């Protein structure tokens, strides 16, 4: 097998940590002030970025921290989105919609995870691709329940409500923004604690050497299932947050090309660092936004970026020269 290329980075020095903390506080304050100073479009874009950041942070728990490349995350994204949509269409209560969507995705990820973690490497990627596309074909073909290729439309941005206690109207874009912002920040913060918890550290140990972790008595599959379920839950939260924003859900969100979005964001920002997928989500939309001003063909530039990132991967090129001299390519 190839040498594992994802190493745990040492913590930054206290001085740099302090600087980063100040930067983060400024950023969060700026995010809270955004709707007061910016127009509708930047607010909308910020929500898209936050949603992709949540999606990608979950994906990277599985890829960067556990070493499993899933091509089916869009399936859980769609479970969250459709789950939220069905609930909001029946009961206009945002609490129920979001919680329900997340719950559907979490249950789906747990059940499909039991099967998926039986494999690793390419077989895992293929299996998650198959499961994700199963969810896509249900969304696309089960017209009575999912609306088929028309999707579900007219989903209300319902109030946050506990009947008889309070009801907060968030139907305005600038108000719904705070729902997305607070939940995204909470999810990201929770993940930040999780990757430093014993669970997160064990996942990294499994990634670096499965056999060593097993020898140390770690139930490897259970830990992988935990990572899979959490990643699916994060995908579900991202999907559920998207539904009231767009007021519609359509099958393409379940397609494997949607699964590629967190992959792109994570690669763009960096797999090694916790904040990588978040920065990547930001870059993803900013680059896209800049490119589409000049040309409708923005994907080709993303392709070029992906190829450049993979090719320029540190250690990769060096390893190439070393191996080349010995006359073998791999293994």
């Amino acid at each position: 097998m190839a040498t594992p290329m994802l190493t745990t980075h040492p913590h930054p020095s206290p001085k740099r940590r302090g600087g980063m903390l100040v930067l983060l506080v400024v950023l969060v304050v700026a995010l809270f002030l955004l709707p007061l100073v910016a127009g509708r479009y930047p607010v909308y874009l910020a929500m898209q970025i936050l949603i992709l950041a949540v999606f990608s942070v979950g994906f990277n728990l599985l890829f960067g921290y556990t070493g499993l490349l899933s091509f089916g995350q869009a399936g859980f994204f769609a479970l969250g989105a459709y789950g939220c949509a069905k609930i909001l269409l029946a009961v206009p209560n945002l609490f129920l919609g979001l919680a329900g969507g997340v719950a559907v995705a979490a249950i789906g990820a747990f059940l499909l995870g039991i099967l998926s973690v039986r494999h690793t490497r390419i077989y895992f990627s293929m299996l998650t691709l198959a499961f994700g596309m199963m969810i896509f074909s249900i969304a696309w073909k089960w017209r009575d329940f999912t609306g088929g290729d028309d999707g579900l439309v007219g989903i209300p941005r319902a109030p946050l409500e506990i009947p008889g206690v309070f009801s907060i109207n968030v139907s305005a874009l600038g108000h719904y923004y705070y729902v997305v912002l607070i939940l995204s920040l909470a999810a990201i913060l929770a993940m930040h604690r999780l990757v430093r918890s014993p669970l997160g550290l064990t996942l990294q140990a499994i990634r670096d050497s499965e056999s060593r972790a097993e020898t140390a008595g770690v139930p490897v599959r259970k830990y992988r299932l935990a990572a899979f379920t959490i990643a699916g839950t994060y995908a579900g939260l991202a999907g559920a947050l998207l539904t009231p924003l767009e007021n519609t859900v359509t099958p393409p969100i379940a397609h494997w090309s949607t699964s590629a979005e967190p992959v792109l964001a994570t690669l763009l920002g960096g797999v090694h660092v916790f904040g990588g997928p978040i920065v990547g989500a930001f870059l993803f939309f900013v680059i896209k936004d800049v490119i589409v001003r000049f040309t409708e063909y923005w994907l080709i530039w993303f392709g070029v970026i992906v190829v450049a990132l993979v090719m320029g991967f540190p250690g990769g090129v060096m390893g190439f020269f070393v191996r080349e001299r010995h006359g073998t390519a791999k293994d």
Partner: protein
Amino acid sequence: MENIAFQGLIGLSLAMYLWLISAGLTIIFGVLRIVNFAHGSLFMVGAYLAYTFYGQLGLPFGLAVLLSLAGTGLLGYVMERGFLRRIYHIDEAYQLLLTFGFILILDDAVKIIWGGVFKIPPIPAFLDGSWPMFGRAFPVYNAFVIAVGLFVAVALWLIFEKTWWGRITRATASDREMASAIGVNVPRVFSAVFVFGAMLAALGGAIGIPVRVVAPGIGASMIIQAFIITVIGGLGNLKGAFFSSLIVGILSAYGTLFFPVFELFFIFVIMAVVLLIRPQGLFAR
């Protein structure tokens, strides 16, 4: 009853496109141990090139197909020599991601060069018409596609089992270090295999142009079907790829006839079940 037999023949010709694309994917995986996500895009490029030479420039059909194979082979050569070769030693997840980058590039490149969907060019005169079969008219062109697919199957078997080149390739596939030790130029075998696989995909795309719509998204939909087939047949198993192409092709022909709603879903169920129960494929020894 006649309807069922006829639909089987239609499925058989569908199976041959699937066979051509999954044969290339299988050979590349078998030797290079790389899952080429962009293989469907090579199929698409093959189709577009053949369309240019045959539909737009009016070259003879056979020549147009050959030129399309050459062009796609050249593209494969650039992909392997310029990019894939440099990352064989790092984690396979990154190889998948690299070929995924190729999909994005090729999909948009095709849109930029050729625009959207193109008009289906006429079937070449010598392959036009139909034969009465099971009380219906079976197009000669479908018979031609079946013949090409079977020819490629026999040719691949002969190449791999009977020729010096085939032995070298099989030796490299089973143990590349040992092959290198006995004097095989492994990097050259890798390039040759990748180019050959690319040309097989292009052949599938090219012979489809008079009857199938080719649009920029075709690469993505073909690679998914090719994945399903190579998983069912066993990754790297050429014989398995052939039989599972037949199964998937014929099943989806019946599926669209009898269960149009659940066809897609069931195919992915089959893929997942095979991966869980027999990850080495249904046709592994």
